[in-house]
């Protein structure tokens, strides 16, 4: 069952088509990744989903009904460019954001204090936001995103600019929300994160959705004839070999596309014969990065 459907969204800014007829579906209880390089149209798509931009065309459908203001109250949104009122006190800030979502009263305050304790910021609750370190301000921003107990969490490039501690914290929050049955949608240009966290993805390039579906299905589809290899030694002898269709070096691992799915054993044999120390040999495996490069080309350096 799809909880949220995006249908034919289109948005044009002065003749530039930012999002072009984008459609995708977000299943219940999933972590959904909207993937693409910088400027591909992710933020515009998300802003349209949030009702911050009005689409030129298309709809966002929640369980069969077009979304409106009441949807906004059910969403926790973390924009790519985050901001807080600098002069406002920490606790006031949290309560204000919850109030805008329609949650007021003692219970919210209690919850806010719980979160502050959990994130080790309880003793700073009466401090002004500007007196907090950047990392702590990020924590406040997370709390404000989820304090009102949203059914949907939409995160735009959530991992950009986070320190490692907060990156893990955010990951925990995302997994915790998932375990509570919430739907998490995030956009990222970091394929690595998407691959580790998402159940479903939609890949967007130049405003168009070029790939969508369950990550495991997508990988299975693209993984045939594919081997990912971690090794020590020299594998340059493989270049030009007749069983190899394509080779791509990703640093730690090398992705190898064979001409035929039955040739994996033959490849392994070749490696052993050439004294290559195989540390990891993963047949029928492909990284999201490889899929992306294959589909979108690699002329842009924005994807890493």
């Amino acid at each position, binding site marked *: 069952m799809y909880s949220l459907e995006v249908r034919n969204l289109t948005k044009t800014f002065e003749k530039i088509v930012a999002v072009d007829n984008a459609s995708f579906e977000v299943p219940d209880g999933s972590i959904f990744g909207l993937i693409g390089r910088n400027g591909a149209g992710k933020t515009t798509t998300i802003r349209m989903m949030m009702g911050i931009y009005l689409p030129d065309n298309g709809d966002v459908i929640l369980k069969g009904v077009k979304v409106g203001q009441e949807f906004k109250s059910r969403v926790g949104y973390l924009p790519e460019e985050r*901001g807080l009122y600098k002069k406002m006190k920490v606790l006031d800030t949290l309560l204000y954001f919850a109030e805008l979502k329609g949650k007021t009263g003692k219970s919210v305050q209690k919850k806010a204090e719980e979160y502050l304790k959990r994130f080790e910021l309880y003793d700073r609750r009466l401090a002004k936001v500007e007196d907090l370190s950047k990392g702590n301000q990020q924590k406040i921003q997370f709390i404000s995103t989820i304090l009102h107990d949203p059914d949907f969490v939409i995160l735009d490039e959530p991992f950009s600019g986070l320190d490692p501690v907060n990156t893990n914290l955010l990951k925990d929050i995302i997994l915790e929300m998932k375990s509570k049955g919430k739907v998490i949608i995030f956009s990222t240009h970091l394929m690595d994160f998407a691959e580790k966290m998402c159940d479903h993805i939609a890949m967007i390039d130049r405003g168009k959705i070029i790939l969508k579906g369950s990550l495991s299905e997508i990988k299975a589809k693209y993984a045939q004839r594919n081997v990912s290899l971690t090794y020590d030694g020299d594998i340059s002898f493989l270049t030009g070999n007749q069983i190899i269709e394509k080779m791509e070096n990703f640093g730690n691992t090398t992705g190898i596309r064979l001409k035929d799915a039955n040739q994996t054993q033959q490849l392994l044999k070749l490696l052993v014969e050439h004294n290559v120390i195989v540390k990891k040999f993963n047949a029928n495996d492909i990284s999201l990065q490889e899929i992306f490069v294959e589909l979108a080309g690699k002329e842009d350096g924005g994807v890493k």
Partner: protein
Amino acid sequence: MINHRVLGVIKRELKEKLFSKSFILTTVLFPLFLFFIAGIQVFLRGDEANTKLSIVAEDQKLTDALQAELLTTDLIKGGKHTFQFLTMSREELKKYLDENKKLMLDDKLTGVVFLPRSVMKDKKLEYYSKSPTNISLSRKIEGPINKVLIDTYFNNRSLSKDELDFARKGVDFSGYKVSKDDKIKEEGYGSLVLSYVFAFLLYISLLMTGQMMLQSVIEEKASRIVEVILSSVNAKEMMTGKIIGSAITAVMQMGIWLGAIVTVASSAMFALPPEIMISIKTSQVVFLLVNYAVGLVLFLSLFGMVGSIFDNPQDAQSGMWPVMMLVMIPFFISMAMLENPNSPIGSVASFLPFTSVIVMPVKMTVVDVPIWQLVSCVVVNIAAIFFIFPIAGKIYRVGILRTGKKPKWSEVVKWLKYKY
């Protein structure tokens, strides 16, 4: 239109503004500042250096008469002004001036007033001094000298003292205000003072509130918090909340200021001289506040709109001047109207949106304005809100998410056509 989200924004604006240092300071200090300025002016006028004048007449009789008159005036009492009275001919005067040149240049002798014989014909006298344009001094001795001249002139012509007194008098205008219901009553400068106070307070408050609105929008835009807010609240709700919050603050502040003025005006403690006694009517205060509240919504829509277009205060300053003109022009119109309360421009401006915010309350202090005019002034402003607000809202909606290059006005006009 007003829902829990707008209320939330209003509450935050109020909390932020009402408890801010600048609000408390301006609310308390501004009236003090006004009194301070008034005090300084009084002080400056009273501050005169000691003067020493030689009054020289060619006619001994005139000298005696001048001496008798000047020494009985208030001038001599303060001890600041001293006179010496001499009789000499023009030739002798020349010599006297040469002798005393050094004293005059050293400020030991302020000046020499010379009354030649011809003064009894043409009332022309001569003043020799380092600074012969000292108006405040000549104003003070002008009266007594004139009195002496008239007395001397008419002395031989068997006129009664009453006739002399009449001849001596200048003309004195007393203003009588004609109004519909009250009896005709004499009016002092009180209403004029009130006009200045109204015009000045409205002008200052509009500028301050507008400036604060502008800054707060720019800050929200620059700190990127606006997108977080927009994920809960739509742009129109946000703008409405901000405008109402600011307007409430400004009207409250105005109320406090006017309250202070009413208190001062009605308390005997300050014992103002009766001719500048301010008579302030409740209806004037109520109308001013209502009219101001409506006008603020109108003005703040524009200030908010301008703020949304730019993402830093420097650019915004340059973009703000058209709106600033809308604040300044009515101020100058109302100043001009004080000279001539029935000027056509003033009458028209008291009905036009934007200008009427300042002009109408000021007009109310100098002439009686019929109720229908007051009502239509407010109605016109409300109508203007319905026209301006959607335009400002649209530009705000587009502008608030824009960053980067400073947009051209032609681009801003294009935003109106955007579907956002």
